[in-house]
């Protein structure tokens, strides 16, 4: 392959090697160069501060009139070095970091990471059933809250204001469930290596079932607003086209590849956390466009509700069952509890370690400060997040801290398809195409 002079990525040689400059202060030379060309070519910067770029995504557009001839994505504005940071924290502490990557799907980040750690420890089958049921239930609730943001903001960006109000109302109900169960609405670090941080509070199953009923009723409002709405369909049908061949080579997963007709859903083909025990359908569409991806998200809501109902049914018979592995050398010593001053170690536990048992105190201290050791090796664990395959490549050198963790973020890979979807289309359709990818920049940049 040949290298060519690129107006957006000039290179220069230094003692350290070739240095490329993508953004640089080269607008003047670019404008001069373009001014000499005969055709009407305009280069426009969209973002990084733009309300429809889902955070801080920068798109460099080359336009001929209203037609987009080239799209380049600029990312990295939200890079926080989470993968580097967790190399300096112990295996349990890392959950509080990874939960902040894709901030709309915190539980999936935790799940992918914890499944990887459990695989390295060889305790995948020792995770108690109740912990698995709670994980599945929380992930499906999270899928709903994430899809609600995708649908609400997607519609808002195309000019439909009402769905946003309904979607955020529904999301709020899900966040209330999260707060009720984990104490936090976002970034809850609830899934831990070996199980979950705390058992369900009293009355949880009733509350969950009531919320499911409520959500199922109110999802209809959204469907009525958008499904079949002629203005909405004109903005979305045939827009952002990406077929199966394109999606496969670009490594695109999630609703975008399911909109090409391929039922690629890890919950079905490579089940984890007991997904093989639930009845649900993989939703697909065959339109390869924004409308198909929208319909998939709408219809996945009902499938998530179905799974949650089955979880609630299982939870009824699991009252009092453990939610953390039995191995005391891995299990977090204390259950968390929500007290008058917020969430913390349960008072019973504090009474035990501070008042009655020196051995308990030592055990607590060792596990909390030192943590546990994970046998050396590497694994890849993947879960089906709302945006596609979220994989964690976890490497251990046998120590108490991760040696290297790399996340295969679905947003990162899916965002690459922006150029394929948008080049040749109208400017206004970029908004719809990007919204249908549903990238979360916290996940893209990590």
């Amino acid at each position, binding site marked *: 392959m040949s290298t060519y002079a690129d107006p957006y990525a000039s290179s220069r040689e230094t003692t350290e090697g070739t*240095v490329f400059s*993508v953004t640089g202060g080269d607008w003047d030379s670019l404008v001069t160069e373009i001014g000499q060309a005969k055709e009407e070519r305009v280069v426009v910067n969209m973002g990084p501060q733009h309300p429809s770029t889902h955070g801080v995504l920068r798109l460099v557009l080359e336009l001929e009139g209203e037609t987009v001839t080239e799209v380049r994505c600029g990312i990295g504005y939200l890079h926080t070095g989470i993968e580097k940071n967790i190399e300096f924290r112990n295996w349990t502490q890392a959950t509080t970091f990874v939960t902040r990557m894709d901030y709309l799907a915190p539980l999936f980040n935790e799940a992918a990471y914890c499944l990887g750690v459990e695989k390295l420890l060889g305790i995948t089958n020792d995770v108690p059933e109740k912990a698995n049921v709670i994980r599945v239930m929380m992930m499906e609730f999270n899928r709903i809250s994430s899809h609600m943001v995708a649908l609400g903001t997607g519609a808002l960006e195309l000019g439909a204001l009402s769905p946003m109000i309904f979607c955020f109302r529904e999301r709020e109900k899900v966040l209330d469930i999260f707060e009720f169960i984990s104490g936090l609405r976002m970034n809850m670090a609830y899934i831990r290596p070996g199980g979950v941080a705390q058992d369900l509070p009293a009355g949880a199953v009733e509350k969950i079932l009531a919320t499911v009923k409520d959500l199922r009723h109110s999802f209809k409002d959204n469907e009525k607003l958008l499904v079949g709405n002629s203005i909405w369909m004109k903005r979305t049908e045939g827009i952002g086209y990406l077929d199966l061949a394109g999606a496969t080579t670009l490594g695109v997963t999630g609703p975008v590849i399911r909109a090409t007709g391929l039922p690629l859903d890890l919950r079905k083909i490579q089940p984890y956390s007991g997904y093989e025990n639930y009845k649900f359908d993989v939703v697909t569409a065959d339109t390869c466009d924004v409308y198909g991806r929208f319909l998939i998200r709408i219809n996945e809501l009902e499938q998530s509700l179905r799974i949650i109902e089955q979880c609630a049914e299982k939870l009824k018979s699991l009252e009092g069952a453990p939610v953390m592995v039995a191995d005391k050398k891995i299990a977090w010593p204390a259950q968390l509890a929500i007290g008058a001053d917020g969430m913390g170690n349960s008072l019973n536990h504090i009474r035990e370690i501070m008042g009655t048992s020196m051995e308990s105190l030592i055990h607590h201290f060792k596990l909390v400060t030192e943590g546990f050791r994970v046998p050396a090796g590497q694994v890849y664990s993947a879960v089906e997040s709302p945006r596609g395959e979220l994989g964690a490549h976890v490497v251990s050198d046998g120590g108490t801290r991760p040696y290297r963790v790399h996340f295969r973020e679905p947003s990162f890979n899916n965002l690459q398809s922006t150029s394929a979807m948008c080049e040749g289309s109208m400017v206004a359709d970029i908004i719809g195409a990007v919204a249908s990818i549903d990238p979360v920049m916290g996940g893209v940049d990590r």
Partner: protein
Amino acid sequence: MSDDQQGMFGAAGTGDTSGYGGLVRATAADGSSQRPFGGYFDQVADDLERAYPDFADAIERVVVDRGELTLHIKRERLVEVALILRDKLKFEMSMGVSGVHYPDDKNRELHAVYHLLSVTNNQRIRLEVSVPDIDPHIPSLVEVWGGSNWNERETFDMFGIIFDGHPGLTRILMPDDWQGHPQRKDYALGGIGVEYKGAVTPPPSDRRSYK
């Protein structure tokens, strides 16, 4: 992987007098696996050997660990193997590239790890290529799986691995004029200490901690 690690607590040369710092921990090498590999791995290895006559020369070793198959491949042969895996063995999708830096693995310091998924056969395998720090070149797989484009840019950005033949190997997450490659082990985490009422909590990389 690296040799035994000495000392399980604290930074080297500190005043740790507990004796705990003298403990030695073996970081087991992952070695190579012998047949039968189990599961569908034998089938994958057989198919690859049949479709690719130079198998013995191109594959350095095969590791089956924790139910996952890793093929360690010579970098000169990476593109050939990748093409055969894609076209003959139906590994249609590359799920990305992750770099790992093993400073103690002499002349193989930088590893690039590719996660492949076969949708047709519902299989996963992993390719691993190791290159020395002084010559960090790996052929690009953008021509094989277009989605490798950003993944290779990220691995270049974070580790300094140069993917030859990549259409535009520029930094992707860090600023363009950034010095160094942050995910390498010789790149300090950084951070500043936090002072509160006279006591200072050092940044995480400078704390005495368990290894």
